[in-house]
């Protein structure tokens, strides 16, 4: 069965471009230009994944509203926010909209496709409870590379896809400093330095919610970030 992706985007050119590329990669695409139209159609039939623009026509936060409405229909539906504004990163995380990922519109289509397929993989594996094969274990940290889930000291850390990829990049070689460019390419994003900084801040906060004493991500000023390796047991 072909997977069905809904695109809600008010700019017709972007909408058509995204629909074209996703269609060419074997997805079934439904594109909508405004919130009311999208909600009416999605109520009838829920897609497998939604690409959601935040500003929809006159509604500055129309995407947020739609996301909340979709979440009441399905808790598991993968949602990716597309934003034109950098500041939306903070809004998305601050409002805890339940999005699985968010990218700026300057994301390249291959990057977008990588995200879409990653989220599908996660949704699929999440459904069947089969034990995942690819697990990275670093002391109290557990990364499931198929489901894109993170565990810390037994608790679940609710990371977005981008954040997951960043953590993965850091923990692959504990103690090694990753600079911002490396983090960007590993997380399939093109953003500026200060956005990387706020991503790292959010990751720390999410780990902190599980373990208030969390301090494994070090800032190496002027260079980048580093995952501190486990201290030898005393």
């Amino acid at each position: 069965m072909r997977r069905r992706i809904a695109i809600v985007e008010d700019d017709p050119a972007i909408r058509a471009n995204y629909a074209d590329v996703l269609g060419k990669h074997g997805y079934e695409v439904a594109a909508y230009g405004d919130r009311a139209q999208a909600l009416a159609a999605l109520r009838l039939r829920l897609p497998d994944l939604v690409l959601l623009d935040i500003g929809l026509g006159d509604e500055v936060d129309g995407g947020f509203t739609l996301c909340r409405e979709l979440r009441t229909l399905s808790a598991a539906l993968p949602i990716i926010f597309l934003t034109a504004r950098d500041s939306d990163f903070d809004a998305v995380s601050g409002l805890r909209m339940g999005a699985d990922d968010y990218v700026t519109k300057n994301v390249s289509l291959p990057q977008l496709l990588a995200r879409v397929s990653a989220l599908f993989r996660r949704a699929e594996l999440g459904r069947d409870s089969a034990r995942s094969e690819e697990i990275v274990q670093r002391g109290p940290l557990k990364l499931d590379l198929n489901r894109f889930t993170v565990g810390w000291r037994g608790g679940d850390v609710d990371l977005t896809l981008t954040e997951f990829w960043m953590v993965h990049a850091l923990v692959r070689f504990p103690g090694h400093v990753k600079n911002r460019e490396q983090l960007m390419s590993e997380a399939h994003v093109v953003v500026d330095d200060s956005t990387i900084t706020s991503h790292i801040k959010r990751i720390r906060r999410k780990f902190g919610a599980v373990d208030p004493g969390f301090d494994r991500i070090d800032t190496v000023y002027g260079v980048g970030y580093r995952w501190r390796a486990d201290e030898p047991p005393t």
Partner: protein
Amino acid sequence: MAGTLTHHRLPAVGLRTKLVLAALALLVIPWAGYSYVKAIERLLRENQQQQLVATARGVATALQDRPGFMGTPADGAAAGARAATDQVQLLIAGLARPGLRIWVVDRKLWLVAVAGDLKGPLPAAPGSVTFGPLEGAVQAALRPIYERLYQRPASPTEEFIPNDVVFGGPEIERALDGAPAWRRRPGPGGRAVILSVAHPIWVGESVVGAVVVEENTDAIVSLRNRAMEQLIAVTLIAFSVAALVLLLFASRLTSRLRRLRDEAENAIDSQGRVRALVAGEHARDEIGDLSRSFSTVLGRLAQYNDYLENLAARLTHELRTPIAVVRSSLDNVRMQQMPGELGVYVGRAEHGLNRLETILTRMGEATRLEQVVRSGERERFDARSVVAGCVAGYASAYPQRRFALKMTEEPVPLTGAPDLFAQMLDKLAANAADFAEGETPIEVALERDSGEALLRFSNTGPLLPAEMKDRLFESMVSVRKERRAAEPHLGLGLFIVRQIVEFHGGKAGAANRPDGSGVVFELRFPLAY
């Protein structure tokens, strides 16, 4: 602002001085008063003289053609002469009064009769007091000056008619020659002036004697002096009051203008932010108008500044969507089977697009920073570790430049965000690396200086233009002359530095090296305790 340099050169003649000088025009009033008093005095004198002449003529008329009265000594009859003298005495006694003396002489200057004396009544006490006790006080204060200016007239106390008056008086000689005459002669002691009028007494065709009427002029002099004193006092009081009022008015005006000037001068601070004026905001005069129109101008300037500062954010936002259209279209093209040549053009288009995005990212940086700054999360950190880490990183980031770091041994604790602090260092380093010339390393120094942290970035290279020194840290201000490399420059780097410095409660400044070899950026932060 070139104006700030000239402002402090205060004008040589202030508004206050000018107003007081203008008030000197009021001095025309006492001069007019003085002339008036003089005219009145002259009038009074003439009037007195005419009165005396009339009296003298009246007496002479009463005595003329009555040979019995003025019997000649040749007629000899002593008893008759006595009786005649008594009658003359009787006649003139009725006309004489205190202050007015009448006497009659015959041709041989024998005194026939005399009546009245020169001891006149004291001049009337000052009647009209225009300013009450105030004037009294001024008069009392000025008394010694009056005394020096003129002597107060003393009533002549001539008991008898001096011989020299009788025998030497030219007016009497002229009267005996047949013509009425008058003269003013000094009174005894020379302090008073006595007006003396002589008139011939005719018997038939010959003059048999003369009538002399004398009066002292004390009353007039007193009156004049009194008027003068009053004039001086009133003028002095009026002038002082007027000058005081003018001075207060001018002072108030001056201080309002000064306040307005000071405020207008400080309305645009060194960071380029604009404040509205409050001095004279509600005044309904010209200064209020000036203040309001200043405020309007400043308001427009503030709007313009806001516009400039927000331009970057708005542009970023507005351009994102069309860029996304181009990028997604190019990506779509790339995913097709492309003939070899097409790939080159798509590659170039993508290269251009990437540059465009770099520009947009730079422009958005300041806005995002503002959001971070507004969220206001602060922690305590040691600036030394941030500076050391960053400067170590610059060696690889700018391989063509050398960085020399000098740091204090003591810890430099600051309150703020180390990430932002590092971002600020990056901007300063990028700036220094862009402008540095020659082989001399870029000097970075972190010190503790009188309770503050002092961070210095210094590089050899072109100097700052004088007019730009205050504006360097504003948004979209750049002193770069030529376009270097492919890196876009929007003049936002130092604006970001300023925002981060302010977030840390510090101050940023830029200056040329004293020896003129380069530029120093100096940042001061309060230490955290």
